[in-house]
């Protein structure tokens, strides 16, 4: 949660928001109000860029527009034509009361003469009335068939529109995801170090999901809603400008009411969001630190802070649900007021013959249909805001500076001998804090170089530079005399096998995780690597053996076993150069001894860089580098360095005496706070 990554539940809830929101099209804004709108930094340019993404889909999108116009237009004229059927029926009902033979004008005059002025007005206003004739079913049937046809076509068009739109949006999002993933591969490692992983993850997952959702919903609903509002107003004006004016008064009223309620509910929703977050972290902490809470006897404190947050959430949740819950009834009320006024005024006008009953009926239908999309548009604004804000965060990733491209016409190094040379190398993660300065180092082919020193000394950095994970500030590093920047990264890294401090396994079987080291490796090769690195031993104790599926974080095997797996992976890749960064720190020492044997076989004839805490594991290295503050302070073999009685000897003594030793480890706290340093 702290990473802002949504749980499957939350996402499922979002996925399900779809059809509900569809329903909302007719029932007011119940959805979309739940997410507090995040404000975007530059709404207009970002929105434009977001629309620009839809550029390749412009043909289907034009079709969508045309279909929407046609479908809404047809739906809009439906009630008007249907009104004619009502008029026919009404005419038949009224007309049947009069004798046959007279025509309408005569009848009106006769009625007026009899002093029935009101009835005369009514009759005068009925276009289809023929005195003495009942309902003309032929005419009614024709009208109804026509309307049925119109509705059928409108529905079909609307379906086609939805069909095309969903395709266009999903293809666009597919492209966006692909571009972002592509981009990740071209970003320098600094970019990943420079921000919490959760933050980046949230951008490439949640934010893209949100963009997709907003695009899909706003494009389909905003378009139809706007068109519907326009069409309804047009039809109302056409039928009766007076009634239309009355109905239109409700636009500002309902807008104002929705805005007022929306603003209040927004406040509650933000509060609810906040309280949920706070409650979640209380829950998360007390469950994750369950045993500590118990053993330190802090249950009462935890319980009371939970109660406080739970009460907060109750108040906020209640407020949010209530305030957002009354939007619908309120809109319904405004709609009803409208209905009443139209029914009365319309009734009076029919009675006075200045309007037909069918038109009043059509009008009532229009006025009922246009308040809904209106509130829909209002709630879309929030969704749009949050979608654009998310898009902006995704664009930031897409716009990040990429790593320097590989050299053009790069040298190709095939099976290098493995001579590595650092020439006056300087490097820092942050120019204000120089780390490695003017470092020179020569490693001959086949040598094993061990690097020791306190945390933050720059051990991991040194080997990362060999991998070209970072670009140097000055100097150069060569492999077999070739500047590594003259090689492609692919070429360079293919020649180097690396086992990292932080073990990383992906969700998949143990076999797949080992095979990751070498594309297209055979079963035999995988098994051989597993046997050589003692993976085979523990795999046999797992229920599914090599087919055991590791969960995302590799939680079902121990830290030591994870390290063995990553060693097997490097073993399989059979590189010219080997880098082992604290490769066995989590393996127990007896297993480590076994792995060491396998490793020395692996190191044989290969240039190797080994970083280790346990000095016992590197005694037989050809060269031991003692690093401190980015500098190599001592260099030599185990025996030489012990004889020198300097920093190495001190470290060694500390490790093996077991007694208190007054060694200044030179450990600086600040560097530990930044990632990726050894």
């Amino acid at each position: 949660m702290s990473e802002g990554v949504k749980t499957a539940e939350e996402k499922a809830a979002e996925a399900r928001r779809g059809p509900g929101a569809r329903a909302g099209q007719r029932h007011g804004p119940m959805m979309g109000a739940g997410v507090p709108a995040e404000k975007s930094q530059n709404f207009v340019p970002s929105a434009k860029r977001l629309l620009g993404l839809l550029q390749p889909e412009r043909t289907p999108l034009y079709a969508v527009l045309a279909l929407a116009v046609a479908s809404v237009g047809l739906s809009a004229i439906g009630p008007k034509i249907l009104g004619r059927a009502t008029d026919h029926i009404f005419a038949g009902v009224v007309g049947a009361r009069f004798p046959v033979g007279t025509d309408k004008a005569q009848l009106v005059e006769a009625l007026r003469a009899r002093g029935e002025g009101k009835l005369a007005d009514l009759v005068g206003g009925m276009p289809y009335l023929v005195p003495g004739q009942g309902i003309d079913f032929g005419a009614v049937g024709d009208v109804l068939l026509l309307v049925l046809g119109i509705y059928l076509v409108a529905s079909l068009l609307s379906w086609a529109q939805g069909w095309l739109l969903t395709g266009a949006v999903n293809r666009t999002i597919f492209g966006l995801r692909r571009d972002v993933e592509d981009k990740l591969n071209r970003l320098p490692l600094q970019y990943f170090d420079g921000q919490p992983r959760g933050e980046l993850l949230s951008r490439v997952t949640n934010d893209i999901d949100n963009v997709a959702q907003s695009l899909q919903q706003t494009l389909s609903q905003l378009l139809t809603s706007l068109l519907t509002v326009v069409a309804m107003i047009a039809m109302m004006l056409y039928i009766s400008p007076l009634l239309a004016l009355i109905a239109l008064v409700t636009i500002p009223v309902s807008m104002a009411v929705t805005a007022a309620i929306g603003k209040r509910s927004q406040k509650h929703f933000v509060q609810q969001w906040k309280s949920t977050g706070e409650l979640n972290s209380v829950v998360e902490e007390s469950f994750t630190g369950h045993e500590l809470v118990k053993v330190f006897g802090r249950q009462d404190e935890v319980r009371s802070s939970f109660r406080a947050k739970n009460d907060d959430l109750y108040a906020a949740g209640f407020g949010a649900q209530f305030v957002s819950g009354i939007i619908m009834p309120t809109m319904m009320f405004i709609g009803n007021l409208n209905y009443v006024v139209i029914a009365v005024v319309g009734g009076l006008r029919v009675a006075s013959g200045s309007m037909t009953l069918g038109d009043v009926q059509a009008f009532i239908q229009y006025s009922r249909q246009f308040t809904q999309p209106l509130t829909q548009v209002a709630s879309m604004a929030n969704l749009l805001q949050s979608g654009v804000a998310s898009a902006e965060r995704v664009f930031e990733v897409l716009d990040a500076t990429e790593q320097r491209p590989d050299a053009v016409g790069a040298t190709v190094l095939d099976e290098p001998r493995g001579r590595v040379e650092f020439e006056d190398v300087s490097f820092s993660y942050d120019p204000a804090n120089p780390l490695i300065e003017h470092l020179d180092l020569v490693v001959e082919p086949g040598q094993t170089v061990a690097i020791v020193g306190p945390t933050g000394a720059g051990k991991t950095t040194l080997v990362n530079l060999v991998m070209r994970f970072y670009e140097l500030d000055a100097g150069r590093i060569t492999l077999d005399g070739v500047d590594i920047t003259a090689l492609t990264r692919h070429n360079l890294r293919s020649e180097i096998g690396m086992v990292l401090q932080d073990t990383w396994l992906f969700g998949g079987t143990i076999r797949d995780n080992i095979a990751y080291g070498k594309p297209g490796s055979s079963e035999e090769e995988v098994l051989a690597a597993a046997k050589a690195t003692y993976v085979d031993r523990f795999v046999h104790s797992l229920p599914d053996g090599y087919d055991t599926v590791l969960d995302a974080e590799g939680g079902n095997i121990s830290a030591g076993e994870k390290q063995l797996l990553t060693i097997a992976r490097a073993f399989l890749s059979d590189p010219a150069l080997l880098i082992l960064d604290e490769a066995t720190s989590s393996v127990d020492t007896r297993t480590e001894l076994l792995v060491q044997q396998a490793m020395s076989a692996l190191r044989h004839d290969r240039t190797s860089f080994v970083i280790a805490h346990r000095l016992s594991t590197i005694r037989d290295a050809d060269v031991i580098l003692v690093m401190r503050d980015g500098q190599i302070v001592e260099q030599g073999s185990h025996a030489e360095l012990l004889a020198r009685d300097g920093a190495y000897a001190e470290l060694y003594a500390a490790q093996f005496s077991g007694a208190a030793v007054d060694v200044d480890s030179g450990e600086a706290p600040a560097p530990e706070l930044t990632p990726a340093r050894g």
Partner: protein
Amino acid sequence: MLVRIVRDYLRPYQGLVTVLVGLQLVGTIASLYLPSLNGRIIDEGVAQGDTGFILRTGGWMLAVSLAQIAATVWATYLGARSAAGLGRDLRAQVFARVGDFSAQEVSRFGAPTLISRTTNDVTQVQQVVFMGAAMMVSAPIMMVGGVIMALREDVGLSWLLAVSVPLLALSVALVIRRMIPQFRTMQESVDWVNRVLREQITGIRVVRAFVREDHERARFAEANTQYTGTALAVGRLMAMVFPIVMLIFNASTVAVLWFGSHRVASGQMQIGEMTAFMSYLMQILMSVMMATFMSMMIPRATVSAGRIAEVLDTDSTVVPPADPLTIPRVGAGIELRDVTFAYPGADVPVLQGVSLRAEPGRTTAIIGSTGAGKSTLLSLVPRLYDVTGGQVLIGGVDVRDAALEDVWARIGLVPQKPYLFTGTVASNLRYGDADATDDELWEALRIAQAEDFVRAMPQGLDSPIVQGGTNVSGGQRQRLAIARALVAKPEIFLFDDSFSALDLSTDARLRSALKPVTRHAAVVVVAQRVSTIVDADHIVVLDDGLVVGAGTHDDLLVTCPTYVEIVESQQSAEAAA
């Protein structure tokens, strides 16, 4: 499950719910009454040219509208209150339940799922209760009321209801039924896409080190393609819903006019009644549609309710004694007598017949390979788990016979994964003792070799610690966890491999600083490094859950081959001698 939970937890709000149903009834009747009044405006006002009647009835309609909104808003208020109240009570109940769990239940469920059961699942149930109060209660009322009103207007047209209502419900339900499995697939594909991205971001170094960018790209493309395919399928199904609903609504209107006109012609119905009937039909269809959409939430909420019930129905395996004995105040050492422990469902016990004593004022070390059962052994002392055989005693009292608080008050635990809580350095240290002074905190930090880096932090003791303590390094976290235990000044210290993230010189200094303050305490240290425990008073060697050796370092070098192996794996023969 859903029914049971909703019934049980809605009980305190029974009064509110009863009023709510009453209000929904009023609101629904009111909104059904409006078309009827409109019908009368047409038949008795318009057709007769009676303007006075039109105005009077209009006034009535206004009054009915007011009654309708008053009832609905009040009902919404009550619904929100009951739902939020139910959510609060349910959350509190689940939270309290988990609070009573032992480590065994927590690890059986796993902390993440317990968290989402307490929060997300409860929210699901709460949501469905609110929606239910708002719509699912009114839908059947609307249905029944609408049918009654429609029948009142004209029995002869009512067969239209019998056609269009099931038609709508059926077609919407059919589309939704096809959509639900798609949603599941879609959720899986979203998870897949996100998992691949997560792995790429967290494993970026490995991906680059092994030059597997192309492989990752292909993996992602596969996930992305599947996701897009499912999203398309869902989107296309969704695109059908609205047109279908629209068509059924509109066709029903047309049908009412056609069949109604015949009844009007034969004098069985008035034209205003026909209009009213049309309105009822619309209202009924609308409520049916709402109910159908809302019912989509039920399966999800049912799953959530099941997950909640599972927590509520689980009892802690660690049961506090009814009549606790008191552990003697001074000199409480630990003794394990023939202890056996197996995780539930496991064939092989983790510990078998383990006996050992940890006396006050002495340091007892436990060493062995990973998986030898060292951490499990430690967790038996504070009753995070209960033994499956034998006894664990503190001060001669079986831990199962003492009050849990009494046991915990004696123990300072430094777990293998040093977890820190959100707050400051000081608030974390005061976890051990809420009343500790700043001086006491600094003293603990000094001993734990954490003084330097805490002093170097800009805000010192008040420096913020984020959840889990991820803003300090692993080594720093370990030292803060040690300081936290020191602040508590317990009689028993349990260090579970607590020095592993420290470099060796820090480790050495920490141990020598610890000695004076733990002079009267029983100290139990689990370790992998021989150097950490070489000067312990008593060393116990565990291998595969069995004690294979016990004694001092020098004794063990003679008597215990496993120990010798461990030592040799860590240092050269001459250094060990």
